Every structure is written in structure tokens, then in C-alpha cells.
């Protein structure tokens, strides 16, 4: 507490100007006292004794000369056991608890404890009296769901400490004093199971950041094979409205091969969050056999909730992600949508009367986006184990045009780009990730050379398709036409995936390798067809067989049968196999 106080001098939208006496820090939290309510605000500019704050609530009713209290603390979140399974707003208010208190509507000025104070946790001490510890060292553990939650030395305690006392194993609530630490000056510090960390500072209590190399499997074929994401990597999903961004994120949040998923619903429709809220507790995580909600945290600041809190929500989410990374876990953060977050910055920048950049976004847009994505990463912790934060953000470009500032700023800093296209979603080709525009710098679950070889059929096939629109089928050579058919075939049976089919919705990497091998066999084979119509008929038959097989359970006798039927059907017509394809298939078979 700095005891700095001030008085309101101006209100403009959600920006309130305050005249202060005493020191203030940038990004410090202040409370405006409005007729018995305290409205949370953040300092965003200091000019002499005049301070501008963005208020996280509606500002109706604020008057000039109302008192303002400064806390001296930056906007922070509570970290400790019990975060998993929670639903928070952008300021880490637990929404179900808020609902109990205020009913249907989100009344301003209500701030509740993020972590319940009455839940008991089974504490097992790790340190002994006399041990020397520093920040992020484990003091003890409590079980949280299937995880061992580490109670660590708060990250803000920067020197080295001696353990003075430790609570014995037993049941405690989060606010109980668990350990007393003594610093070199003999000052004692009480440590409980929770502590606060400012959201806009990255947690950096690790030894080294590593290069993201291990794939984060999403069980979506087009992503894992063609445009993979690595654990600790970053990717973005831009697309016009209705192209399926949110559905793709929902599918990823269910299937991703990580320990913890944090969903930041930032400025999007409330209805979509509701689907997740209601479905997740019912869905079973195949990895643990428990409800998906137990590995999920939802931060939801939907479009009609206050804008400044929307800006904070992505930071709240990423801070919790970094916290669980400190426990050696793999965390995936899905932010939907980063454009709404950028728009929140734009609104504030406008009120501050800053000189605008492109499309009135502030000039610091790029650096802010970059530093947010840079909080992802796979790291080696002090104990030698690894933990990762992967960030996937959707972008909602105005008019579906990727040449706009948010998409462009994001593309500069991410490792993979999954561009959704209106053309593909209109043609009901889901997921609508455009195979020619998208890219990834990460390693695939399949040899990149093989992927590139297959990708050629997509690009060349699309060229032939374009040409055919002008000269017609009759003007196209049979060879070109075959490439076109093969490209279409690859698209239909491998790139497209039915997220509503229980089997096809999630495809394991083993299955991807096998199917990819089969597809390569088709792409690399030469055939004898008399007419184009014959070729088309034969390919549509083959496509149907693959699609049917896609929805049969993996490793079941029916699948083996269907697979054999495909191979037989193929053998009937094939006249030769390209050498490159042969090598790819052999390598794949070795891997399986």
C-alpha cells in the first residue's frame, strides 16, 4: 500500500482522469469509490500529478471529485491450487460464484476471491527446516485432480532464504501459513499456498528456454501432418466470420495432447462459451479418464463485458499458463479472438488521443502482440525437467482480409499459420484451413520431405483446376487431369475431417501415418484410364471407400477389412508406382 490518494477530474468513456498526491506506478491498480461501490481501474498514463486510468467497469455515475485509492500493486492474479476447472472473467473473478451473489447480471464493483478459501488441500512438505531455497523452489505439494500441484516459493521473492518452519503433512486451506522463510537479513516471510503475480510480467523462473521441436498432437490431420504445432510453439488461426475458427479451437481444446488447456474467450459471443461450459464437464479426457473440465481453465470476457477487462483477460490466461508450466506440465492456451483484444487496445489508445497507426490501431500494436506470443515457450526448469506453454490465437480480420494490421503483426511472430478461407467453408470443406496459404515452421509427425511431396499434388492440382475453368475438361490433358483428381482426392480424404463424427473427429498419429501411406500410394501410382469420365468415376469410388474407412474404429477388424478392400481395389487398377512414393511408404512402414 502506498497510501496514494486522488480525486477524479475527468471521465471519457472508460477512461477516468485522476489528480493525485503522492507516487503512482504505471499499470498500478486503483479503486474509484462511487456511491459505496469500488470500481477497479488500471493506471495507463502519468502526466505530472494527472493520471489516466482505464476502468474495468461501466463508468456511468462517476462524478468529478470522487475519491480514488491507489493500491501500489500492479494488476495481478492469484496463483495456487484450485485454478483448474474454474471459470473466470478477465480479472479472475469466478463467474459461477459471482452469479450466486448477483444473479443473472454482472453488477459492477463485485470482486471475489479467485481461489476458494474454505477448500482443504492435502499438503505434503518437501523442504525441511534449515534448507536453503529461492524463488520457484518447491516447498511442498498438494494433489489437484490428477496432477501434483507444487507449492512454490513466490516468484516475486528474489533473494535466497532459509526455511525456518514447515507445517507437517495434513489438510490446510490455501490461506494458511505453510512455511516461514528467513532472508539473509534475518527478516521472516510467511508463505501460504497462494501468492499473486502481476499479469503483464512474464514468469521467468526457469534455467533455459529451449527450441520447440516436439509436436503437439491435435488429432486433426491437416494440422498434425501438414501444418504442425510444436509444444511451446505459437500459431494463429485467422479467418472471416463463419469460417469455423471457434469450432476448430473447440476441437483442439478437446483433443490436444497436453496436460492443461486454458481457454481465453476474449470478446467473442457468450453463446459459444456456454457450449464449452456445458459440454466440457460431460466429456471424458481419454488420457486420464476424468472429466475434461478437470484439466481446463476458462477465462471468459465476452463481447458485451467491459472492454478494459477484455484487454486484461489474455494476460490473466497466459499468467496461469506460465504458472502450471513451472510444475513441469504442458499447457495450451487458446485465445479467441486476439483481434478483439487488439481492438480493446485501439479503443483505449483513441481515448488517450495517441497518434494512430494503421486503421487507427496504436503504433505499439506489433510489439505488444509480439511480447504476448513470446510468453509461449518450452523451458528447462531448475530440476532439469521440461514444461511448455503453447499459444494458439484466432484472428478475426475485418472483411476477412488478411492484409490488416492485427493479422500481419501476428504472422510476424508465430511459428505456424492456419489461414481459414471463406471459399473452403462455403464449400463445406472443414476444417477450412487453406492448404496453399497456410504454413508451419515446426516438425510434422511425418517426414517433412514426404509431406512436401504430397503437397505438390495440392498446388499443382489447384493450378490445373484453375486452368480447367477456362479451357474446360476437353482442353486438359489426361496427365494433368490425373494430377487434378489426385489433388482433390488428397483434399477430400485427408485434409477434410468430420468433427461431428465420433471416430473421425480425433485421429491418432499412428492412424495418420497409416492413412498417409495409403494416400501416398494412390498419389504415386500410375493408372490406365480410357476416358476422363472413367478416371473420375473410379476416383469417386475410391474416395467413398476412404471416407467410409475414416469413420471406422482404429485397429478394429472392420477397419482392417476396409483397409484391405481399399488395397485390393487399388491393386486392380495400378500399373506402376513412382520411386519417390515407394521410398516414402517404406519409411512410413518402418516408423509404424
Amino acid at each position, binding site marked *: 500500500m502506498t497510501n496514494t490518494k486522488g480525486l477524479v477530474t*475527468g471521465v*471519457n468513456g472508460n477512461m477516468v482522469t485522476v489528480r493525485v498526491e503522492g507516487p503512482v506506478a504505471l499499470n498500478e491498480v486503483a479503486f474509484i469509490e462511487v456511491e459505496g461501490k469500488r470500481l477497479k481501474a488500471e493506471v495507463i498514463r502519468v502526466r505530472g500529478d494527472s493520471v489516466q486510468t482505464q476502468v474495468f467497469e461501466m463508468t456511468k455515475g462517476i462524478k468529478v471529485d470522487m475519491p480514488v485509492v491507489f493500491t501500489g500493486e500492479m494488476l495481478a492474479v492469484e496463483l495456487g491450487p484450485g485454478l483448474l476447472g474454474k471459470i473466470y472473467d478477465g480479472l479472475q473473478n469466478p463467474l459461477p460464484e459471482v452469479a450466486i451473489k448477483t444473479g443473472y447480471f454482472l453488477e459492477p464493483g463485485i470482486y471475489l476471491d479467485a481461489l476458494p478459501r474454505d477448500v482443504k488441500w492435502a499438503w505434503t512438505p518437501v523442504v525441511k527446516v534449515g534448507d536453503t531455497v529461492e524463488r520457484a523452489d518447491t516447498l511442498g505439494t498438494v494433489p489437484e485432480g490428477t496432477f501434483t500441484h507444487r507449492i512454490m516459493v513466490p516468484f516475486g521473492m528474489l533473494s535466497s532464504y532459509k526455511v525456518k518452519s514447515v507445517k507437517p503433512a495434513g489438510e490446510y486451506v490455501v490461506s494458511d501459513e505453510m512455511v516461514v522463510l528467513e532472508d539473509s537479513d534475518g527478516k521472516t516471510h510467511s508463505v501460504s499456498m497462494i501468492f499473486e503475480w502481476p499479469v503483464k510480467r512474464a514468469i521467468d523462473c526457469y534455467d533455459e528456454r529451449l527450441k520447440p521441436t516436439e509436436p503437439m498432437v491435435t488429432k486433426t490431420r491437416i494440422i498434425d501432418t501438414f501444418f504442425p504445432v510444436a509444444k511451446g510453439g505459437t500459431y494463429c488461426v485467422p479467418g472471416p466470420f463463419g469460417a469455423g475458427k471457434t469450432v476448430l479451437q473447440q476441437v483442439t481444446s478437446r483433443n490436444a495432447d497436453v496436460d492443461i488447456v486454458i481457454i481465453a474467450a476474449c470478446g467473442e*459471443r457468450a453463446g459459444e462459451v456456454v457450449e464449452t461450459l456445458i459440454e466440457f464437464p460431460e466429456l471424458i479426457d481419454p488420457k486420464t479418464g476424468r472429466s475434461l473440465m478437470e484439466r481446463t481453465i476458462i477465462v471468459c470476457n465476452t463481447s458485451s463485458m467491459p472492454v478494459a477487462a477484455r484487454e486484461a483477460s489474455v494476460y490473466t490466461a497466459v499468467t496461469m499458463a506460465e504458472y502450471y508450466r513451472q510444475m513441469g506440465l504442458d499447457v495450451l492456451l487458446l485465445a479467441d479472438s486476439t483481434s478483439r483484444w487488439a481492438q480493446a487496445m485501439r479503443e483505449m489508445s483513441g481515448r488517450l488521443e495517441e497518434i494512430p497507426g494503421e486503421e*487507427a490501431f496504436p503504433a505499439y500494436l506489433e510489439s505488444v502482440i509480439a511480447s504476448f506470443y513470446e510468453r509461449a515457450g518450452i523451458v528447462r526448469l531448475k530440476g532439469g525437467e521440461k514444461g511448455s506453454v503453447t499459444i494458439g490465437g484466432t484472428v478475426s480480420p475485418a472483411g476477412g482480409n488478411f492484409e490488416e494490421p492485427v493479422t500481419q503483426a501476428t504472422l510476424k511472430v508465430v511459428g505456424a499459420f492456419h489461414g481459414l478461407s471463406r471459399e473452403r467453408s462455403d464449400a463445406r470443406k472443414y476444417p477450412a484451413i487453406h492448404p496453399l496459404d497456410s504454413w508451419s515452421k515446426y516438425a510434422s509427425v511425418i517426414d517433412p520431405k514426404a509431406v512436401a511431396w504430397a503437397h505438390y499434388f495440392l498446388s499443382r492440382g489447384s493450378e490445373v483446376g484453375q486452368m480447367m475453368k477456362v479451357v474446360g475438361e476437353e482442353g486438359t490433358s489426361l496427365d494433368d487431369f490425373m494430377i487434378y483428381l489426385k489433388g482433390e482426392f488428397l483434399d477430400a480424404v485427408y485434409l477434410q475431417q468430420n468433427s461431428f463424427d465420433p471416430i473421425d473427429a480425433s485421429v491418432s498419429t499412428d492412424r495418420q501415418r497409416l492413412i498417409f501411406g495409403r494416400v501416398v500410394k494412390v498419389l504415386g501410382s500410375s493408372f490406365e484410364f480410357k476416358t476422363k469420365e472413367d478416371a473420375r468415376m473410379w476416383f469417386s469410388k475410391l474416395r467413398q471407400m476412404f471416407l467410409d474407412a475414416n469413420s471406422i474404429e482404429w485397429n478394429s477388424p472392420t477397419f482392417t477389412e476396409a483397409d484391405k478392400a481399399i488395397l485390393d481395389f487399388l491393386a486392380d487398377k495400378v500399373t506402376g508406382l513412382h520411386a519417390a512414393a515407394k521410398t516414402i511408404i517404406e519409411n512410413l512402414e518402418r516408423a509404424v
Partner: protein
Amino acid sequence: MKKVYSRIESIAGNVIAVKADDVAYGELAEVSTRFGTSLAEVIRLDSGLVSLQVFAGGRGISTGDEVRFLGNPMRVSFSDDLKGRIFTGAGEPRDKGPTLTENLIPIGGPSVNPTKRIIPREMIRTGIPMIDLFNTLVKSQKLPIFSVSGEPYNQLLARIAMQAEVDLIVLGGMGLKYDDYLFFKDTLEEGGALQKTVMFVNTAADPVVECLMVPDISLAVAERFALKGLNVLVLLTDMTNFADALKEIAITQEQVPSNRGYPGDLYSQLASRYEKAVDFSDSGSITVLAVTTMPGDDVTHPVPDNTGYITEGQFYLKGGRIEPFGSLSRLKQQVNGKTREDHRAIMDGMIKLFAAYRDTLEKKSMGFQMSAWDSKLLKYGELFEAQMMDLSVNIPLEAALDKGWEILASCFEPQETGLQTKLLDKFWPKKAD
């Protein structure tokens, strides 16, 4: 009684500024001019200087006019007396009825806690096959009607208002042509629906600031009725006028414009209105249908573009018909599985064939020869347009499904439709002879 201020410091567009103290952000004031009194809302506080947005506009205001602060934000009277009444955007009677002053409620209230929302589950029947059958409207949905000026969107809105099975209709008119206002009034009166309607109408001749109030005032009233257990349908026309009013005020306020002159918070402004659509689990609901005219038929224009990101689909009105392509109800999957077993199959099957018909049309226009299959498609397309798409068609969902089978049977052999054999056996019309 509050103090009266009689020195206006500046007048720019519809915004005036006075030196005053103890004024709250969002508070209302009365400005007395020689043309009468007008309401004004505080939109900015800067030390002692208070900026107000004058509902009646800045024209003719003199620096010597009086400003009296009322000590409360914009409110509207709420009671059952609202039913059957017509008001202006400022909440004044437009129908020569009495002014309502009891039980005032604030407008533009806080948003609903997402955890208190439920997954939408009931369809709203409209009697329009292109909606009921192909893009079902769902209770608590927010849907815009995208169209170009000159399309009969108000006629469509009025028809839905007349036929939709809801308890109450709240109509918010923004920048409405006077003829259109009379059209709505007459249509609802003739159809006997006026008694279950509340209208807040700002016509094109009325002050632009009042236009800004219309969505909030309409939705605040709708919200209260919904909390009393009523299923409310809110019709807003035209949201592009609302966005343009926002633009006008923002520019007068010297705000930095973001895209084609619109303010940077356009998305948040639209979202805070549309997100009022809700289904209260143990009470009523609000469904929002809003017209969004697209300047130049351009869906990437900021208003339809931002709207598309907010709403749960859109109806695309073109050439006097609801286009099957481009129209989408994102919530239809929640309800169309429990209507009739052939609903989804007919919906998908007929649209696929209609897409094929459009391709054939293109081929025909390029002078390619028509095959037997093409001729079938041409016949099908014409029937589909006349008996399904035409807005004059007014039949319940079940009749529309039967009509669908009839059209298919008159054009195709059963196996040509790509529909499941099980459904074909059950529903394919038997030839009379």
C-alpha cells in the same frame, strides 16, 4: 432541485459544453431553448467542463440557453401500460397517448453472466419456409437481415412480427422513413398485433442522437418483460443507421476514426446491444432480429462485417428473396433434429440440388448444351424459387417439408436426390395413377 446553468461554453454539432459541478457521467439534463426543451446526456467530464449530447440536436441552441441537470441517467418507464404504445427514441409518446412516468428503469444495463446462460433449445416458427425449413430461427438467437436499400426488409420484418409465436414484440426503428413507420403501424394494427407490441421509433426526420437511444431503450424494456416470463422478439431496423449515428457523434467529438470513418469501438458498441439476446433458464427470453443494410451490397463494409462476427448467422435478403447461400442460422442444429425426421435431410438435399441448379444456370448462360439432367435441374430450380423462396409463401414447417417432397417428386427419380433410402420409402409421394 438541481442547479440551473445558464452559460453554455461551446456548441459543436449536437454536443454542447457547460461549466458545472457535481454532475455524474451518463447523467441527463434538460436544455431549454426557444424551440422548447430537449433532453441531453453527459458524454464527457473534464475538470469543471461537462460535455452533453443534445437529443434534439445543436441547431438553434444559444449560449444563453438554460441547462438543468436531472440527477439520473437515461431511464424509461416500465409497466404493462407500454403494450400497444408508440414512443420516440427519447421515450416520449409518439401516439398522442399519456406520458408514462412510473416505475422508471435504467437503460443500457450490465451484461448477463455467461454462466447463467443456457444452450438454446426451441425454434420460433415464422411460416416462412426459407427460415423454418432451411435456416431455423431459434429462441434467444440474434440474427441480422443483410440486404441492400430498396429490398423489402421491413416487409419481411413485419411479416415475422405478425406470425412469430412470441408473447411480445418490441420494435426499435432507427432513422426509419416516415412511410415505413406508418407501414409498420398499419400492418400491426390490421393484423391485430398492435396490442402485443411496443414501438420506439426514431424517424429519419428526428434528431440523430435519439437514434442512438433506440436499441438500448428497446432492449431494456424487452429485458424486463423477459424477466417477467415473456418471450420477447426485438426487431431493430436499421442498425446501419445506428452505426452511422455513432460515426456522426464520434467525428463531432474529434475521435480518431478506424475504418471508413467509423469509431474504433464499433464492434463493442454493436456487441453490447446484440448480446442482450438471451434465454433466462427459469423465465422468458429475448430474440433479436435486426436489419443491416449493406452499402453497395458489400458484406465487408464495417457494419455488416462487425455484425457478422457478433451475431449467430444472418439472413441474406436479395432480389426480394432470402438467399439460401450466404444465409445461415448457426443455431439451427440445436433444434432441427427434433422437428420431423426428414427435416435435416430435406434441408441439405434440396440445397445441394439448388446449388447444382445454379451451376446449370451458369452453364446455360455460357451457351453450353443442356443434358437431360440439366433440364431436370432447371425445372427443379424454378419450382424451388416459386414455391419455397418466394416471400409470399406462408405455410407451416410440416407443410413446407411435404411441399419439398412434392417438388422433388415432380422433377427427379428417387435415387437422383441423394436422400437416404429409409426416408425415400417413407416420404416419397406415391404416384396417383
